[in-house]
């Protein structure tokens, strides 16, 4: 990306002053190296977001920002409903509430090594992954609405997981004000057999080892120490979220002119929060958040079953569950004034600092766990929201590595079988229904997540707490 259009605020903050139709500045948090490597499209997209009505303070992009749909992936923007603010289907994305959850196991490498193959096979057999896979749950219309209303709380009531899990999920596992009646029959039909499935693409379930601790105090609060084995699950709201995204994108794109909104890009489709379509989308999107929370909760249950079959001594307590494609109504202090804002995070993780009442009590003094997924076979990180993160981008941080090359390039360069064998030689077991899928998700096809995480830490978006290395990976 050409840096001459930015003013450098600090080594990790780059700013574009408002020009043309921009209502606010655009700000990117990244190192100079990440900035130079960043897609030109990020500049175009983040400055486009800055033109939307009712936007507050600035349009932001995280260190892992890349070319997205309307919003950059890694984009954050907050809107004030009473100042004509909008909600954008493109600003949330297709995979609504896609996110990561991490579970403790109480195990060490010595427990895992002797049964690693069997654990991989058992997890792969029990957790449905890949194209066309269906779950063991088949929902009736009534059950579907209860799931969309109740999220992970619904799943726990159905016997999937434990009540103690709920306090460690954003929104206590249930997004308020979900409106299942705003979710179309098409969307519900796509979800009927998909609860408790991983999906495909970059979604995965990984067993990981804590390699390094960067902040002992926070790690202790999170219950992490070097050598611990944890499980991370990355997936979202499956077919239901995608269908809602698709339908509202069209409706918002077609109705924008009726609300006097000029869209610089159709993918920025949005509607005033105070409008019928805006309210309908918020209700449907919140139902999709619950769908994702229920999905990760059911997968957690299946994971516990798999561990119980192989390593009965394992205790899979939930560390935390974060979503990185959402729009949420939150309280933030802007220029000394407390305001209620609709914060869009597209490929960005909420990273609330210490003291927020939204956080579970045991983490409130250290800040929210921020779970950053790597790519298959590479490191993942756990960060913590810090006090500074509130003042930067409404308490938000990065979400992952981002691709460095396309799927087509990746399949030309790597063969799935060779990758699986090579990773196995490095002690990482891969289980996937599709070798082509493995090739497309090759570790080398992604950017180095360490650089992204370092930039987030230096920029003050979140603090580095722990580094995780994969031992086995179930790929969709």
């Amino acid at each position, binding site marked *: 990306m050409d840096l001459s259009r930015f003013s450098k605020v600090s080594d990790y903050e780059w700013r574009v002053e408002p020009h043309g139709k921009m209502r606010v500045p655009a700000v990117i948090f990244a190192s100079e190296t990440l900035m130079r490597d960043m*897609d030109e*499209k990020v500049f175009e997209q983040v400055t486009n977001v800055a033109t939307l009505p009712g936007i507050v303070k600035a349009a932001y992009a995280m260190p892992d920002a*890349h*070319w997205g*749909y*309307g919003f950059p*992936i890694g984009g954050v923007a907050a809107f004030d409903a009473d100042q004509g603010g909008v909600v954008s289907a493109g600003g949330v994305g*297709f*995979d609504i509430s896609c996110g990561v959850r991490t579970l403790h196991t109480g195990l060490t490498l010595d427990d895992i090594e002797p049964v690693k193959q069997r654990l991989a096979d058992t997890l792969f057999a029990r957790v449905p992954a*890949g*194209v*066309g896979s*269906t779950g063991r749950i088949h929902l009736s219309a009534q059950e579907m609405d209860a799931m969309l209303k109740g999220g992970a709380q619904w799943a726990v009531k159905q016997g999937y997981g434990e009540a103690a899990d709920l306090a460690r999920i954003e929104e206590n596992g249930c997004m308020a004000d979900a409106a299942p009646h705003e979710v179309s029959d*098409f969307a519900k*039909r*796509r979800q*009927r057999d998909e609860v408790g499935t991983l*999906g*495909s*693409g*970059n979604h995965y379930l990984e067993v990981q080892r804590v390699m390094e601790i960067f902040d002992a105090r926070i790690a202790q609060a999170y219950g992490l120490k070097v050598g611990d084995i944890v499980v991370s699950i990355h997936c979202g709201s499956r*077919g239901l979220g*995608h*269908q809602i*995204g*698709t339908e509202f*994108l*069209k409706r918002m*794109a*077609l109705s924008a002119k009726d609300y006097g909104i000029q869209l610089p*890009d*159709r*993918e920025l*489709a949005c509607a005033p929060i105070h409008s019928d379509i805006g309210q309908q989308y918020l209700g449907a999107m919140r139902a999709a958040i619950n769908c994702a929370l229920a999905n990760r909760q059911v997968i957690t249950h299946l994971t516990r079953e798999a561990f119980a079959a192989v390593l009965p001594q394992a205790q899979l307590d939930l560390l935390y569950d974060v979503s990185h494609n959402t729009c949420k109504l939150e309280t933030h202090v802007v220029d000394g004034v407390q305001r209620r804002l609709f914060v869009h995070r597209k490929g960005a993780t909420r990273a609330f600092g210490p003291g927020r009442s939204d956080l579970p009590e045991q983490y409130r003094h250290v800040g929210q766990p921020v779970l950053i997924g790597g790519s298959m076979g590479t490191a993942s990180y756990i960060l913590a929201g810090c006090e500074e993160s509130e003042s930067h981008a409404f308490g938000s941080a990065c979400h992952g590595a*981002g*691709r460095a090359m*396309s*799927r*087509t*390039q990746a*399949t030309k360069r790597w063969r799935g079988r060779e990758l699986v064998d090579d990773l196995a030689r490095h002690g990482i077991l891969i289980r996937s*229904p*599709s*070798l*082509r*899928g493995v*090739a*497309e998700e090759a570790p080398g096809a992604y950017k180095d997540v360490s650089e992204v995480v370092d930039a987030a830490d230096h920029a003050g978006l979140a603090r580095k707490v722990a580094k995780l290395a994969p031992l086995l990976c179930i790929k*969709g």
Partner: protein
Amino acid sequence: MTHWEHFTHGADIGVRGIGNTLSEAFEQAALAMTAVICDPALVQATESVTVTCDAPDAEYLLADWLNRLVFEMATRHLLFSHFQVTIQGEQLTATAWGEPVEVARHQPAVEVKGATYTELKVAQTETGEWLAQCIVDV
């Protein structure tokens, strides 16, 4: 010359259909979408699904068509390899032929989540061919 191709978009992939008519371009774009998932040559045409879509212009119609196929694939657990499209004004009527997903045989790499409006374009080229393209989210 009627054909399909892929083009790159960071995390995702672009599908492009080229044909002598608008309908042919739409058929080829659908084939390009199947090729994102698996090799279309592996998909036999044993079952058919008929769909209709309405949209205010040809570009929205392309997105609707591909999204409708995404829906049919997801809910019927099918893959498609042959398409016959008829477009009249704002309305599309089509039949798609394919078969149920068999993971071991088809080796599907990835699900398509939806067709997007990014790089969405339907146009007639200088040589008279029709082009229909967009990025699909995977």
